[in-house]
């Protein structure tokens, strides 16, 4: 039963992913400029334009080009950049890894921190800690990423402990990478932790109002055990959702942070491509970001289904 539900979710996720490719492709069809025109500039003659269109396959019907695009994307072939004619796959190769590395680094720092703090805030509800956390997180949520980033650059960059330009030297070891990406990762951590902590707290506080929590206390269960044994197993599902939501947020938050720290990631590449209106690159980057986002949300969906006792143990 439960596995059928998981199967359904996975199938739905695949469907969403497919629909997203249609949206991305369709948007370009509807709004996109003429690739050939852009490539050759205004001075191009009709003949050269037609020849290039023919060569790029722009004369084929939309669904054929869509099929070709998807077919290529599945094999890792995203076509060539309009700006420099290099294969997009080569441009993105190392960058996707860098971006995921940065996001993972931030996640490793922020997830335990925010869940821990959220639990404490829920446990000590309405204490000075809770109030300070409320004001603090509300403030942090309101900060644009680049504000947090530049504050860190100003504060920590001046000490020289960590580099403010996160360029990765070739052949860098794991530790060197951690050192170089520390400031961007810390920026992301600060931004996401506030969100995640508030949502964790809200999920727990919501649960603490349940009759079964009161029942546990009326059985003489101590406070810590109430949280640990009675609230947490039920909070698992909402917390997983909170984490996934924020990890998905990390994936986009990374774009701005990469630009601030000049980090060679996918976000940086995409922003550059947007500026030069290099449509194939933007298209490919958008597809990859969207895919990561959808997969994370899907993962959360499946995990929270699996952690819900009512769904796990059906009648």
């Amino acid at each position, binding site marked *: 039963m439960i596995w059928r539900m998981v199967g359904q979710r996975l199938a739905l996720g695949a469907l969403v992913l497919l629909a997203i490719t249609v949206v991305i492709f369709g948007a370009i069809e509807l709004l996109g400029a003429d690739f050939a025109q852009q490539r050759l500039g205004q001075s191009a003659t009709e003949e050269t334009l037609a020849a290039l269109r023919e060569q790029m396959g722009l004369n084929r019907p939309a669904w054929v080009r869509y099929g070709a695009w998807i077919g290529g994307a599945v094999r890792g072939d995203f076509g060539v950049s309009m700006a420099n004619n290099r294969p997009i796959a080569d441009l993105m190769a190392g960058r996707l890894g860098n971006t995921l590395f940065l996001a993972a680094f931030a996640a490793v720092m922020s997830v335990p921190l925010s869940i821990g703090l959220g639990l404490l805030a829920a446990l000590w509800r309405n204490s000075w800690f809770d109030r300070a956390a409320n004001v603090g997180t509300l403030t942090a949520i309101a900060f644009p990423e680049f504000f947090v980033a530049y504050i860190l650059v100003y504060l920590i960059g001046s000490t020289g402990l960590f580099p403010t330009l996160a360029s990765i030297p070739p052949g860098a070891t794991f530790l060197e990478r951690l050192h170089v990406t520390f400031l961007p990762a810390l920026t992301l951590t600060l931004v996401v932790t506030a969100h995640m902590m508030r949502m964790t707290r809200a999920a727990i506080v919501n649960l603490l109002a349940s009759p079964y929590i009161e029942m546990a206390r*009326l*059985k003489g269960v101590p406070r810590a055990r109430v949280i640990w044994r009675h609230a947490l*197993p*039920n909070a698992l599902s909402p917390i997983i959702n909170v984490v996934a939501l924020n990890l998905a947020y990390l994936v986009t938050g990374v774009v701005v942070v990469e630009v601030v720290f000049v980090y060679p990631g996918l976000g940086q590449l995409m922003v550059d491509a947007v500026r030069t209106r290099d449509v194939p690159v933007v298209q490919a980057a958008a597809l990859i970001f969207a895919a990561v986002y959808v997969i994370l949300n899907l993962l959360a969906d499946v995990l929270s289904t699996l952690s819900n*006792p009512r769904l796990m*143990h059906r009648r």
Partner: protein
Amino acid sequence: MAGSLLLDMRDVHIEGRSGDAWLPIVKGVDLQLHRGEVLGLIGESGAGKSTLGLAAMGYVRGGTRISRGEVTFDGTDLVTAPESFRRGLRGKRIAYVAQSAAASFNPAHKLIDQFCEAPVMHGVLGRGEAERQAVDLYRRMRLPDPEGIGFRYPHQVSGGQLQRAMTAMAMACKPDLIIFDEPTTALDVTTQIEVLAAIRDIVDQSGTAAIYITHDLAVVAQMADRIKVLLRGDEVEEAPTREMLASPRQAYTRSLWAVRSHRRPEQPPAREAPVLEVRAVSAGYGAVKVLHDVSFDLHRGRTVAVVGESGSGKSTTARVIAGLLPASRGEVRIEGRPVAPSFKARPKEELRAVQLIHQSADTSLNPKQRVREILGRPVAFYAGMSGAKVEARVRELLRMIELEPDSFIDRLPGELSGGQKQRVSLARALAAEPRVLICDEVTSALDQIVAEGILKLLDRLQRELDLAIMFITHDLATVRAIADGVVVMKGGRVVDEGTKADVFTPPHHPYTELLLSSVPEMDPGWLDRVLEARAARA
């Protein structure tokens, strides 16, 4: 039968926070309980009975506090005792059984794990002993499959069984005192009787003291040695059960007793054609069939009570008639003409002919509209009136429902009591000048005295306006009070039908018999009698 003094609550005051202020919930109540004794705590909603019951455990809910008084349990004042001491008592020497077992069991753990938690944690029993204890208690609570049921999760067990499992859990450490907080209120009558019997037997056998909280006099009569009546946080009176039932001293208590006295004179059977005909209606939600072949008639000036337990399809029948749930087969006729299955396809005249009144007055009035608009809109909408005419009609409607127009016309629903809200929704229905009134459990959420007022009002309006009323209820006392005809439903089918006299006079249909015999009566010997009779027949 009474042993030494176990619980001594003196001058207990409890307050609840409302904004900046503390409002009294319990206003100086004394309560004494001896070992092995069962005290019934009775009162209407807002009487403070649950709050007082929890205070007996030294426990207050968030946002409330014990502002004065002592709660002495076996020699120690729980109000001043440290929290660790109170925690040591809870679940071990004082246990609690909540109203909704479904919500009070943790969905993440198996029943037996929740059973074993208190005895193992308090060091009363080892895990193995606790599990054996659980099976023993499950058996004594007459739960099916006592060895296996503990290894299920709460959502895999029915409501009545959960309530018994929760009572078993409360007995885990053989406590000196159990607080039962309306343990059967959420259950159907036929389930309630089993749970009541199980609870009473186990309390008798174990000799534990108990506080039994309920709003149902007939229930408390079966369970308690003594009864204490509360009203808005004050004690009204207290007496041994038989004495209290035979001769209540206070006027308020007598009014509680007298509530079921309203009885409408029976009407002669109607001769003319029915106003509403339900013909072989079947309906469902998607693939799930809820109604099977339901038929009955409704006549002008008559009331048909549709009775059944939850899930019997009585409200669904109302929704089919109103057109909210189109029938998959069969038809509904109003004044002889078939009407469209969906309300969306019905013309205004047919819509106004049938008016539905919902159970919960809280959700049936728009909280942002004043009474003037709530009643004025249907008046303007149906009768096409405007301006001063609407106002005059609204005032007339308010007088019909016995609310003073000047003081009520500009109120918001939030400024009305539960009974007044239900009256306003009645007036909204009347504004359409309907032929048929469908009342869906309209008195169930109300306190008995208030409900009584609504029933009398309905009765008067029916005579004045010659209304046909379909009255849906699960409460047989209400049926006795107001019905001309009765339709008994079970599992989406009509199982018994006839005039009130037909249905209520033996020999009964077996299910009607079960329903009738399950309704608690004031007589303290009722439960024993019913159980004996059933045992004899089995």
